[in-house]
């Protein structure tokens, strides 16, 4: 083995190619939709972490990646609603709630006016996909989050025109975390609407380029760190207290929250303003979060997650098209009772988003 093999090994490009090959299984559903799919093992599942690419959004993403010499994720440019439907049918997913994948540099470095155009295009495209395929899709509508007044207009449009099921955000935009006071008017409005807010990990500027090894890139660990940061941000800013009607869903099982919640408590349990930010204690406050199951379906992380949160706060998600419904099989191996499994696979989602129960 040469040094180059050890240390120069796989470039990110090669690594992504490998991942795509893995997805070869992944690509199968495209063909499988033509053949008769085998009977799905699960039924009526709701996937709350499922990505979609409106054409304007795809262009913004591809333009940014081209300008920054970042390879495109295999399959992203070929995505259509039918690709999603094939994967859903294969696994027994009734409804997928659509949201944007990781965004770079705020909103790809766009100004608020340009970003809000992309946001509106995503809203309209999401609405069309929902109406073209009744019952099969929901929408966590994006906001631009750069400019607060236009984000508020986007909230109104998303709810009142598009009938979105909630709002889908990144955990930070240009290094601004969700507890930042600049966002208070948005949280006030979403609190008034008792909104579901889904929080996804971005390619954040601090960390997505960290060189910690061949094949490493921001999506592997950095996105989970960033969503954890925003949980701490919402705790210490008092946001969890001030906006009790917002139903937060944090991606990737809360990132690393179930594992570091004890540490966060050890740091903040004696904070002077504890009564203000966490009147029932830090842990109780952090337990207000709901989380999805993306990549935390193995024994170790699921053990932490279910010790940290009641199963009523855990919602199934895939992170399609990056990851798939084999995560259902993983969850089947966790020894969950039928009741808990039903809660995670669909019932919790229906409780939080009643439209999905009727769709």
């Amino acid at each position: 083995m040469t040094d180059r093999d050890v240390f120069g090994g796989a470039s990110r490009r090669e690594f992504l190619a490998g991942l795509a090959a893995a997805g070869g299984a992944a690509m199968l559903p495209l063909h499988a939709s033509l053949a008769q799919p085998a009977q799905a093992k699960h039924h009526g599942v709701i996937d709350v972490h499922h990505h979609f690419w409106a054409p304007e959004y795809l262009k913004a993403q591809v333009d940014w990646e081209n300008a920054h010499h970042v390879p495109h994720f295999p399959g992203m440019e070929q995505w259509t609603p039918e690709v999603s439907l094939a994967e859903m049918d294969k696994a027994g997913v009734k409804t997928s709630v659509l949201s944007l994948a990781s965004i770079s540099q705020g909103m790809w470095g766009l100004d608020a006016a340009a970003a809000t155009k992309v946001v509106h295009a995503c809203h309209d495209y999401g609405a069309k996909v929902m109406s073209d395929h009744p019952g099969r899709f929901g929408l966590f509508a994006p906001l631009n989050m750069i400019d607060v007044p236009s984000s508020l207009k986007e909230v109104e449009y998303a709810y009142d025109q598009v009938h979105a099921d909630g709002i889908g955000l990144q955990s930070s935009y240009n290094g601004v975390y969700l507890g930042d006071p600049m966002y208070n008017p948005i949280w006030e409005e979403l609190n008034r609407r008792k909104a579901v807010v889904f929080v996804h990990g971005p390619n954040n500027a601090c960390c997505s380029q960290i060189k910690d090894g061949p094949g490493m890139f921001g999506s592997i660990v950095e996105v989970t760190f960033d969503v954890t940061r925003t949980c701490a941000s919402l705790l210490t800013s008092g946001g969890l207290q001030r906006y009790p009607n917002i139903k937060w869903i944090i991606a990737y099982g809360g990132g690393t929250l179930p594992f570091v919640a004890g540490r966060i408590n050890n740091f903040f349990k004696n904070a002077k303003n504890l009564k203000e930010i966490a009147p029932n204690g830090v842990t109780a406050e952090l337990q207000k979060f709901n989380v999805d199951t993306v990549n935390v379906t193995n024994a170790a992380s699921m053990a932490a997650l279910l010790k940290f949160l009641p199963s009523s706060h855990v919602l199934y998600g895939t992170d399609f098209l990056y990851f798939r419904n084999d995560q259902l099989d993983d969850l089947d191996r966790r020894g969950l009772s039928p009741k808990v499994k039903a809660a995670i696979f669909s019932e919790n989602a229906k409780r939080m988003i009643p439209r999905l129960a009727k769709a």
Partner: protein
Amino acid sequence: MTSRREFIAGLAAASVAAGAGAAFAQSAKPSHHGVIDTHHHFWAPEYKKLSMEWDDAHHSRHAPTLVSWTPEVTLAEMDKGGVKTAVLSLASIRDGFWGLDPQAATKMVRICQDYAAKLMSDHPGRFGLLAPLNMLDVDLCLKEAEYALDQLHADGIGVQSSYNNRYPGDPYYKPLWEELNRRKAVVYFHGPVPGCCGGLKVGPGVNPAVEEVTFDMTRAAVSLLANGCLARYRDIKWFFSYGGGTVPMLASRINAFFKNAKDIHEIAPNGVFAELARLHYDTVNVTDAPSWAALTKLVKPTQIVYGTDFPYFANDQLDNIDKRGLSAHDKALILSGNAKRLMPRLARI
């Protein structure tokens, strides 16, 4: 709203209750005995001065527990908790090695090593050492390691998870890991204020010690994995702080990304989970039920080693471990047996 200053003051008040004050009263008989604490900080006077000067120059407040630390404070806490031996290492370092050049850093490393060696000989049986290296210049690191292990009989090497954004899997460190592999050394990682993230404005009171050190620990582990170091340096006993930072929670995700990597058989011959299960993890701030569940599902009790992170955190973590429903056998491994296996000198003192 709590400023960072008030927050640190609050933390200090809490830890006085936890530790130092009790030294003056007659402490109750400790409920544990013969414990080994493998995550315990020390400050040679020159090193304390250096870090405080760095703080002053960067308008960063001194942690009160750092300012007031003495060997006597440490011994009082150990006696109170039933800790026989504390293995000393440096706390979080900033700005590479406090912004020093390699020559200045290596002088400071020598001072720290010698100071710890003196504590070990002044208090026989009470201290061990995971010796610092400068980590800026690999040739100097090799000399520092030789001095620490051959002259001072340090129990292993203790470094930060990154220095100026350079992670341990970086090919630059290859000669160092080769030498430490040859020596079958313990290599222990501690979390720095990492270059990427020390300036992030997450929220009031959320200083980098809260989460960022655990994230950086995770990066170090992944860096060693992705660069093939875990597979290549089979005889190094890799040892990670804070229960691996977040490794037990993210093992599944790391595996999901890497299991189909082209070079997976080279970097993780038995799979990603098997590699992560071979590492050693300390118990700092992971003694609550959720994180403990993840850690003990990922690794066997033989890989888990008790640590406090004193003076920032104290031995009340022993009481937490008591609540985790461990067998007497497993608890003995975690509280001292594994440390003695990793660092055999500790069994003889």
